[in-house]
């Protein structure tokens, strides 16, 4: 389908302001902010920041247990219980499709058959950019194996469509490199991806502060996934709250439909009836 004929995705413009829930693989969520659990000072700060963010979907990583060193140590899933949150295990640290697929299978076993995963296959340590051919290969295998794949990818509209076509339940283009805090670097690409999509599009990675998250939502993204922007703020709990509000504000602005941009002024007060 050519860009000219692509249908723009339906927009909700209800006067009541009532929004639809975010639906991912048949699960409904009222929060459009997804958060990670890395880089916090301790589990208590993790729990408080996630609470303040209002997030319902929370990412975790999988790593080897430290043999003989974790007796009685509190477990992340004790403070982020799967009974309360939708746990989204990631494949961070995987540089091959095979490692990512293996990690997803371990995650599914860990979470009692829960099939939702965040797939990321990284290309190099400096940029943490996705290795897209490997990501495509891993996504294909995971979808075939019954996983519900939310895929971290570059902001390439063609690749995004391909992930959707192969059955990924959400496509998550980066705003900028993971942990960079640079904000959305190519908003026109994000817009094109959003316009062409019929699965949820979430900006994942690169958000630095609240306005970045609001911009993603104003572009029509269905949600934003972030970690470092909250965890590395001087006050992570306050930043988590700021992000919650930014996501809501950006979403409402998108639904409301912004005014057109004009090059010159347009008076807000009537220009007739002046007393002089």
């Amino acid at each position, binding site marked *: 389908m050519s860009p000219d004929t692509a249908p723009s995705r339906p927009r909700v413009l209800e006067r009541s302001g009532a929004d639809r829930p975010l639906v991912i693989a048949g699960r409904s969520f009222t929060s459009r902010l997804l958060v*990670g659990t890395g880089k916090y000072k301790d589990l208590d700060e993790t729990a408080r920041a996630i609470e303040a963010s209002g997030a319902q979907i929370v990412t975790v*990583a*999988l790593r080897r247990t430290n043999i003989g060193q974790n007796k009685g140590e509190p477990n992340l899933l004790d403070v982020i219980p799967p009974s309360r949150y939708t746990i989204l295990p990631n494949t961070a640290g995987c540089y091959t499709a095979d490692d990512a697929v293996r990690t997803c299978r371990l995650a*599914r076993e860990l979470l009692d058959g829960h099939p939702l995963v965040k797939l990321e296959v990284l290309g190099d340590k400096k940029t943490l950019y996705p290795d897209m051919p490997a990501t495509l290969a891993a996504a294909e295998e995971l979808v075939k194996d019954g996983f519900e794949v939310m895929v971290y990818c570059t902001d390439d509209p063609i690749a995004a469509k391909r992930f959707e076509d192969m059955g990924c339940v959400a496509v998550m283009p980066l705003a900028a490199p*993971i942990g960079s805090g640079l904000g959305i670097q190519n908003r026109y690409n994000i817009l094109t991806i959003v316009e062409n999509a019929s699965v949820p599009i979430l900006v994942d990675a690169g958000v630095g502060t609240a306005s970045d998250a609001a911009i993603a939502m104003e572009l029509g993204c269905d949600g934003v996934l972030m*970690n*470092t922007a909250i965890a590395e703020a001087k006050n992570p709990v306050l930043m988590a709250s700021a992000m919650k509000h930014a996501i809501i504000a950006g979403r409402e602005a998108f639904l409301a439909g912004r005014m057109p941009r004009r090059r010159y002024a347009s008076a807000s007060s009537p220009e007739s009836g002046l007393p002089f």
Partner: protein
Amino acid sequence: MGVILNGKAFDLDDGATVEALIARLQLAGRRVAVELNGKILPRSQAGATRLKPGDAIEIVHAIGGG
């Protein structure tokens, strides 16, 4: 007998089950997932699965990540 546990040599009793290994590591009742020789070992099979010398076992858990 010697096995490879999380990438390192580890010694345990001949014929030990995966369940016994998990208990010895004081991980019983904790949320972990086990891979045996590259294949997922479902929790329900841990009690019936006896390890053999040279087996490669991975035991993972969830930690913070984005």
